[in-house]
């Protein structure tokens, strides 16, 4: 079985507002795709994504696997810089190892 991977540029992500972004991600993941966001999601967006995901969970879609690097903080914590986030269907993606600057994930489809 083939698995599609969408690598989304930061420019594309920045052209959408938060809710558009999350719906775009969730739609892709529900279709079975792995979505990689160059600019990443903020913690608040990730929490909202979990909330939206839970409303969609059913027998065929148990949820998502999500991994990302922590946000980088700017001067006086006033500006936060998000980094890469990877989101995939929980059925096929499993994070094996996650460190501050390394994410190792296994993607397997039956």
């Amino acid at each position, binding site marked *: 079985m083939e698995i599609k991977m969408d690598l989304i540029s930061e420019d594309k992500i920045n052209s959408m507002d938060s809710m558009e972004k999350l719906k775009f991600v969730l739609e892709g993941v529900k279709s079975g795709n792995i979505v990689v966001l160059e600019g990443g999601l*903020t*913690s608040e967006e*990730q929490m909202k994504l*979990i*909330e939206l995901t*839970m409303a969609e*969970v059913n027998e065929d879609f148990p*949820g998502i*696997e999500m991994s990302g690097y922590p946000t980088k903080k700017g001067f006086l914590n006033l500006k936060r810089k998000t980094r890469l986030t990877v989101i995939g269907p929980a059925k096929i993606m499993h994070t094996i190892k996650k460190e501050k600057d390394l994410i190792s994930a296994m993607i397997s489809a039956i």
Partner: protein
Amino acid sequence: MKSGKKRKGILSQLIRALFFRKKTAKVGIYGPPNAGKTTLTNRIIHTFVDENEDIGVATEVPHETRRAVRKGGIIIDLKSKSLLNPNPDSNSNSKSKRRKAKLKLDVVDTPGLATKIDFHEFMAFGLEEEEAKRRAKEATEGVIEAIKWLDDIDGVVLVMDSTEDPYTQTNIVIIGNMEARGIPCIIAANKVDISDAAPQRIIDAFPQHPVIPISALKGENMERLYEEMARRFR
């Protein structure tokens, strides 16, 4: 995600801390499933309210707590309750003046936060398929409820299992949200009574937050956690 309550600026946090200190702090007990949130909440209630009262049932089945439960009017008074610690030997370094701390709070025991809920997981614990599916549905609703409670919380005790890898996305997302909202957060590194517990991993993973190694089940090091709660959530 911009809403009035979510993005509390540094200035408004400062003003609130200086001039509008709440009489009762609303403290959310958060964490992934099976970290020991309900066991900790029960321990707090046993110590400061009624030793026979439980807020919920703790079992090894994940998502046992599927609705947020709030218990109001708890007074953490370390001066009067210090003798109730069931394991006094574990607190030899936390005596004297620090025990004067006092805090009035409401605790909210929340369902475990997760990015996925698969009903098959419950069947592995012996539940019938229909029961497992029903529990999975309730668990998803519980996660949503836990997230919504974040808008109404003054402080968070984030419970982590010291025997597990702490650097999970769920833990990172919870901490990131606390930091963005300016909500004080204490990490309770739970289950230190288990032989392969490694609370130092949690301390190393989240050095920017206070990490208190505890066993909510055995009551180990609880006074240190209460002292930190009284200090941070007042």
